[in-house]
C-alpha cells in the first residue's frame, strides 16, 4: 500500500530529524563545556594565585596548584590599613551612585515611557543611551578639569558618584523606560479613578510591577561603579581611594606581588557575588523584560 509506505518513510524522516537534533544538542553542550573552561580558568588561576607564595608566582613554569599554601596573603593585603578603607570608599561610591542613578533614571524613564512627546521622543531617549557609546577615555581629561573646579574637587566620594552618572544614568533611564512601558498606563488611570493621587498610585501600583527590573538595573549600575578603574585612578588617591586603584600598589621594588593582588581581588569579588546570589531571582525576572505580561 502506498499510504503505508508513505507513513514508513515519514517515520524514517522523523527519526533522522530527531537524530540530527540530538547531534546538534551534543555539539552545543561540548561548546558550552569549552566556554565554561575558558571563562572559569582565569577565576581559578586568580583563586590559587591568591594562596601562593610570592616566589612561586614568579616561577617560569607556572604551577596550577599551590606547592605551599599561603593564607597569610589575606592578612598581608591589609598591612596597609587604608587598604580596608578603600573597600569602604568603593562601597560608598558604588552605592551612592546606584541610588542616584535609580532615582534619576526612574524619573526620566517614566517620563520617556508615559510622555514621549513632551520628553523629546524616542530620538532624545536614544541620544541619552548613545552617551554610553563613546570611549570613556575621550572625556577623561576634560572631566578632570571640570570636577577640579567644583567645591569638592576631584578627590572626593561625591565627584565619582556624580561622574559615574555619565555611564549609569543612560543605562538606568533606558532600561527603566522599557520597564515602565511594559506596565499599561491604564493601571494608573484605573487607580486615579479609584481615587488615588498620581504619586501614591505610582508607589502603590506601578512601582511594585517594575521592582524586579529596578533591582537588575541597580545591580548593573552598582557593578559598573564598583569595578571602575580609569576615572578613579585619575580623580582620587589621597583623601579617597577606591579598591581598584589599590590593587596595582601591591609591588615590591620592581616586582609585582601577584599573590597579594589576587588575594585582594578575591576579597573585592565577594560583595558583587553575594549581591548577585541574593538578588538573582529578581535579576532573571528583570532581565527577561517581561514584568507584567501574563
Amino acid at each position, binding site marked *: 500500500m502506498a499510504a503505508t509506505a508513505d507513513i514508513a518513510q515519514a517515520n524514517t524522516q522523523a527519526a533522522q530529524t530527531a537524530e540530527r537534533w540530538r547531534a546538534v544538542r551534543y555539539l552545543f553542550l561540548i561548546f558550552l563545556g569549552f566556554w565554561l573552561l575558558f571563562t572559569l580558568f582565569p577565576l581559578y588561576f586568580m583563586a590559587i594565585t591568591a594562596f601562593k607564595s610570592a616566589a612561586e608566582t614568579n616561577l617560569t613554569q607556572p604551577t596550577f596548584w599551590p606547592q605551599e599554601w599561603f593564607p597569610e596573603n589575606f592578612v598581608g593585603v591589609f598591612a596597609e590599613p587604608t587598604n580596608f578603607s578603600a573597600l569602604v570608599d568603593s562601597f560608598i561610591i558604588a552605592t551612592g551612585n546606584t541610588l542616584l542613578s535609580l532615582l534619576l533614571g526612574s524619573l526620566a524613564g517614566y517620563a520617556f515611557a508615559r510622555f514621549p512627546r513632551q520628553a523629546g521622543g524616542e530620538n532624545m531617549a536614544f541620544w541619552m543611551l548613545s552617551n554610553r557609546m563613546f570611549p570613556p577615555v575621550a572625556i577623561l581629561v576634560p572631566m578632570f578639569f571640570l570636577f577640579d573646579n567644583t567645591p569638592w574637587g576631584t578627590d572626593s566620594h561625591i565627584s565619582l558618584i556624580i561622574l559615574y552618572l555619565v555611564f549609569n544614568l543612560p543605562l538606568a533611564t533606558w532600561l527603566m523606560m522599557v520597564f515602565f512601558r511594559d506596565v*499599561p498606563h491604564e493601571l494608573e488611570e*484605573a487607580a*486615579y*479613578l*479609584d481615587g*488615588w493621587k498620581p504619586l501614591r498610585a505610582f508607589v502603590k*501600583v506601578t512601582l511594585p510591577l517594575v521592582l524586579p527590573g529596578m533591582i537588575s538595573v541597580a545591580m548593573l549600575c552598582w557593578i559598573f561603579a564598583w569595578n571602575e578603574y580609569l576615572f578613579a585612578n585619575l580623580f582620587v588617591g589621597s583623601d579617597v581611594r577606591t579598591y581598584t586603584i589599590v590593587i596595582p600598589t601591591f609591588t615590591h621594588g620592581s616586582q609585582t606581588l601577584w599573590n597579594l593582588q589576587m588575594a585582594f581581588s578575591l576579597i573585592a569579588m565577594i560583595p558583587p557575588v553575594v549581591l548577585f546570589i541574593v538578588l538573582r531571582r529578581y535579576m532573571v525576572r528583570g532581565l527577561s523584560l517581561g514584568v507584567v505580561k501574563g
Partner: protein
Amino acid sequence: MARVTLADVNKIYGTGTRAVHAVQDLDLTINDGEFVALLGPSGCGKTSTLRMIVGLESVTSGRIRFDGQDVTHLEPQQRNVAMAFETYALYPNFTIEENLTFPLEVQGVPPKERRRRAHQVAEMLRITPVLKEKPPGLSGGQQQRVSLGRALIREPAVFILDEVMSHLDAHLKFQMLFDLKRLHRDLKRTMIYVTHDQVEALALADRIAVMSNAKLQQVGGRAALYNRPANAFVADFIGEPPTNFFTARPLQENGSLTMQVDNSTLRFQLSSEAQAAVNATGGERFIVGLRPQNLTLDPNRGDPNRGRLKAAIAINEYLGERSILTLESGKARFRALVPPETAAGQRDIIDLFYDPTRVMIFDAETEDLIV
C-alpha cells in the same frame, strides 16, 4: 448618582496643521439613573468623550456638569466616577479582593468593612471563589466581572463601561449583557456604555447616542434610530444587514412622484407624505434608503399599494434562521432578508415587494433624512 450634562464640548489633539478634532460641539444630557450607550465606529470620538467625562483627558472647550456642578477642570479623583476598562486594568500583583477594595482603601474605610463589601460585591458578580487569587489566573469573563466589581464597590456618581465586551466570546457576552441589565435595574445608577457594536447598544441602553466623525449624529431610543434615522450614517450603522442605499432622481409618472435609481431599472414608489416632502425641497438628486428587512417576496401580504422591484439574484446566503439575498439590477446592488427556505438560485429574476412608507429619502449632499 448624577445627571451628566455635556455642553458644547470640543476636544482637539495637537496644534497647528497636525491638530485632530476628535470631538466636535458635543451636546448630550444623560439623566440620573439612565443607561445610555455611546455607539460609533472606532475613531469616531466616543473614547475621547468618555475620557473627558471621567477626567482622564482635558476638555479643549465646553463644559461638563454632574448634577449641575461644573466638573470640567476637576481631577478624576475629585469626580467620583467609576470606569470598567476594555482591557480590564486589574492590578496584576494584588489579589482579587485587594483589587476590589483598592478604591475603599484610599477612602479610609476600615479593613473589616472593606472585606464585608468585597464579599458583597463578589457575591453579586459570582466571583467569591476566586477572591484570594490573582488576576492572571482568571478567565476573561471573571476578570471582566472583577473590573465591574471594582467600579461598583463604591457609590460612583457615574459608572462608565468602555468596550467591556470586546474580548469576550459570544456565549460570555450574552451572559454579561444579562448581568449588566440586571445590575442596572437593581442599582439604578447612571451608566454610560461605550461600544462599536450596535447589538450590545440596542440590547442594553435606554437611549443610544450615535457618534461618527467626531460629531454626535443622533440620540434616541431603539425605535427612533431604526425607523427614523437622522441621516444616512445612522441608517447604515444601525441594523444588520445594513440599509440599502441608492442614488436616485425624482421622476413624474402618472401624476405621482417616483424615484428612479441611477444606472438601473429600479423605480421606487413614494408615500404621499414623501412625495410632498421631496417636492418641497425641489432637489434633483437624492439618496434612497430601504432596509433589507422591509423587502419581502410575498405579494399578497399587506395593502395593494405596495411597490415592486424586479432584480436578479447574485448571491443567496443561507444563514440558518434566515437567508440574505444579494440582488442586482443594472449597476445597483442591494440585499433583502428572506425566509431561509427560499429556493431561488443565482441569476433567477424575482419580484420583491415593499411598503412605500418604509422608504427613506436622504439629501444627496448633506445625507440628512428628508422623510
